[in-house]
């Protein structure tokens, strides 16, 4: 059997979910027998070089770059997995969602207690910077997502069980302790 090709990305996330992927301990050796990584921070491949079987994404969409990367993943991966609370519901970055973006930026760059060095009172506006969205979006509100793995971070065993079940076609082992929202 040829190896499945996996791509991963962290959008508006903290990389904690990727840390949890590494938390599978010595099973990482088995993982390498099962899969080949393509675009991913794990092997530092920056752009898709081939069609992938599984895309695993942590973090929600908070800016235009996140949306672009997410759409690339949808295009290049047969199956997309939302990994973790931020991907599923926006997570902690989405705590700004009830507040208008203008108010957030003014608090961050003009009015907040730590903006002393910003003497010119500039809200970053360089063309090179991705445009911030009106709110942080869960991934499934932008593209179709096939599977969801909750947790902050999702437990390593949950990720392992899910990936193995997906690749082998077996029923997923889902004990109570593994599905947690924190």
């Amino acid at each position, binding site marked *: 059997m040829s190896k499945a090709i996996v791509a991963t990305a962290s959008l508006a996330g903290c990389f904690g979910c990727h840390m949890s992927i590494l938390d599978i301990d010595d099973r990482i050796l088995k993982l390498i027998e099962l899969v080949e990584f393509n675009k991913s921070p794990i092997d530092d491949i920056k752009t898709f070089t081939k069609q992938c079987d599984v895309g695993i994404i942590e973090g929600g969409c908070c800016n235009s770059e996140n949306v672009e990367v997410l759409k690339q993943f949808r295009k290049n991966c047969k199956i997309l997995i939302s990994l973790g*609370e931020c991907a599923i519901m926006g997570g*902690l970055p989405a705590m700004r969602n009830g507040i208008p973006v203008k108010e957030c930026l003014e608090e961050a760059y003009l009015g907040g207690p730590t903006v002393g060095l910003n003497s010119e009172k500039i809200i970053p506006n360089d063309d090179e910077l991705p445009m911030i969205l009106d709110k942080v979006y*869960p991934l499934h509100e932008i593209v179709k997502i096939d599977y*969801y793995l909750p947790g902050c971070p999702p437990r390593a065993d949950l990720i392992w069980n899910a990936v193995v079940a997906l690749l082998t076609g077996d029923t997923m082992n889902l004990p*109570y*302790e593994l599905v947690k929202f*924190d």
Partner: protein
Amino acid sequence: MSETVKFTIDGKECTAVKGQLLIDAAADNGIYIPLLCHMRDLVPAGSCRICTCKVNGRYMSACTTPVEPGMNIESNTAELNDIRKAIVEMLFVEGNHFCPSCEKSGNCDLQALGYKYQMMVPRFPYAFERRELEASTPKIFLEKNRCIFCKRCVRLIKDEQGRSIFAFKGRGKTLEINIDKKLAANMSDDLTMKAMNACPVGAILKKEVGFINSIGTRKYDKEPIGSDIEKIHQ
């Protein structure tokens, strides 16, 4: 002597005192019917509908239905569990429930029901309404983002003269939980703990006790909600 009645829940023969609320009678017979707004001995509110059962073929909330002889009750069925899961999902998208940053996480009834029904993602879009955190009283954080309007605190928490410390304000979309700041200033530590423990979510928090139990030792880390009820009668 009060009259004893016989009835069945999912085919299991049960007995209770006539007139006892179905949800309490079920618990006494070792059957857990999920609940968020109900508390034993409080006047039923019937507000969350998570305890919806089929009584003789009709949908009824178990917390407002007194048991009658010969009742045929369905509770743990695929249809009812999907309705309950949908209610949990609606509550998750209606408020702002950021579990990773919530002090109640692991001890939260709403979250525990999410675990029980294996809610991987809500089927409804998130509302992300802007709500306030009321932190000006000395002992309590009132986190309105998390309130699910069960009215437990309104019904249960009173001062020595029987005055309610919590109350609802507004109607419909503008409904919100509020705290009487003057009465709250005189709350004892015990009453504050009682309020926090009665809240099924993390809307009422006692200040300075956050994250007191580590992950793995909290109420719903290892065992699903309702296991205590189901264990008694095994």
